[in-house]
């Protein structure tokens, strides 16, 4: 009979964290930025149908990097949580803080339970306020911790590099076109210092717009409107540089 190897709890947790981080880094990064009239979500997504960003409730949006089936599950769980809460109490009683808390508890329990494999996802939950001061952005890493973010946040593969870039350049009160331009610039940065071009049709963009008259503030920006905004921000700069290079990045965007 064989005796199982002893693995110290520290080592076990470190292994699980490593596993989750690798899974998350395999996906494309996405960024969430505050702008004057709300919060904008920008990411690279070749699919038109499988979204990285979605509406949870009136003022609450959701963004996720990592494994699709896992974050999709969490997204639907969040929609059910929010709708049930709004139905039992009132629409005003559904808050991003409450939702982020539930997500943190869920991810945390799964992460530390030996019976389950850790989720390879990193989430962002954002709520747009009446004024920019009321905006809330929470980042939820795979282990159930919760980070209250201001201004800008990046998750996914190159998150560190991208968020450094954003931190230096993001300002309060940017227009949507400016914020979008900054986001696209940040996403096009590679870890080796080069830039690559992200065509508009590979961009997924959504906003939580506080100026929308409807109570549901979430809106996807697609097609002509997106093209117009990119033009206004002057984001489309140069470079039909090497399609081949881009392809290789598609598969190689996963370095730790």
């Amino acid at each position, binding site marked *: 009979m064989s005796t199982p190897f002893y693995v110290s709890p520290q080592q076990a947790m470190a292994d699980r964290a490593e596993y989750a981080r690798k899974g998350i880094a395999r996906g494309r990064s996405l960024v969430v930025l505050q702008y004057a009239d709300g919060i904008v979500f920008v990411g690279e997504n070749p699919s038109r*149908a499988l*979204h990285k960003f*979605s*509406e*949870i409730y009136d003022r609450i949006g959701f963004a996720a990097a990592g494994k699709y089936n896992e974050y999709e*599950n*969490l997204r*639907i*769980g969040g*929609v*059910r*949580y929010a*709708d*049930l809460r*709004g*139905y*039992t109490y009132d629409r005003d009683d559904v808050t991003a803080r409450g939702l982020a*808390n*539930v*997500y943190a*508890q*869920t991810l*945390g*329990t*799964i992460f530390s*339970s030996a*019976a*389950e494999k850790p989720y390879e996802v990193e989430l962002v939950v954002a709520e747009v306020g009446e004024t920019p001061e009321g905006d809330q952005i929470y980042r939820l890493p795979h282990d159930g911790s919760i980070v209250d973010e201001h201004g800008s946040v990046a998750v996914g593969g190159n998150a560190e590099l991208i968020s450094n870039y954003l931190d230096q350049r993001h300002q309060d009160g940017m227009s949507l076109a400016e914020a979008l331009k900054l986001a696209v610039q940040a996403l096009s940065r590679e870890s080796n210092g080069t830039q690559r071009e992200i065509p508009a049709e590979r961009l997924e963009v959504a906003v939580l717009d506080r100026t929308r008259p409807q109570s*549901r503030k979430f809106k996807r920006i697609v097609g002509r409107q997106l093209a117009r905004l990119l033009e206004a921000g002057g984001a489309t700069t140069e470079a039909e540089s090497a399609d081949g290079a881009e392809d290789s990045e598609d598969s190689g965007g996963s370095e730790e």
Partner: protein
Amino acid sequence: MEANTRSTGRLPAAFLTPGSSSFVDFLSEHQPELLPGNRQLPPTQGVIEAPHGTTIVGVTFPGGVVLAGDRRATMGNVIAQRDIEKVFPADEYSAVGMAGTAGLAIEMVKLFQLELEHFEKVEGAQLSLEGKANRLSTMIRQNLGMAMQGLAVVPIFAGYDVDREKGRIFSYDVTGGRSEEHGFAATGSGSIFARGAMKKLFRDDLSEAEATTLVVQALYDAADDDSATGGPDVARRIYPIVTVITESGFRRLSDDESSEIARSILERRLEQPDGPRAALL
């Protein structure tokens, strides 16, 4: 593991189980006691007294549909509320008007709106107009027990069918039976009179402005002959709720707009109390 799902505050397993995109289905599995249809009524004698909403009318026109309702709720011979709202947006392209027990009707609308919104968020696409009409049918059927105790809810559902590019109206009975109406429909206590008025005034080629005038005319006639339907209340500035759904979505006429329509009708009726006359032949 299972034991501590509650104490850790994580999402219960039911929330993370893939499956239905229907909020009602989710509720009936997770918290069935919250569904209106699952409530047990204690045995009662006679009819329960509760405010009732009255007349709702709908008219289609090329390019859309108009749905309107009066503002009165009655309880027996008492006016329970003068400014009740009985017509609601169901989602961006549809609206629902409720006649019957006001409390249950408003709860049903709330659940119906949520059902459509929930589907849209989960699936990333809207239900078809038929699909929406069928969901409402199911919800009315679940209320049948209440209806048999005198607490019926009978709605009209109207919407713009994005695929067929036209406005459509569906009417219901207490058992959830659903039928599509062509041209116009009415429900509630004043519906007989409203339908009579619309029958004489309706044409296929109404403009949006004519259609909104037509529904207010019909409501005026309903109020004229049915004591439970409220006419325009000039003194309190309470006018019918008129909503229009077209290609560009749901729009509720502002108070100024609906008061203008009601006032112009009122003015003409000072000379001709029975309203416009149709040709004999």
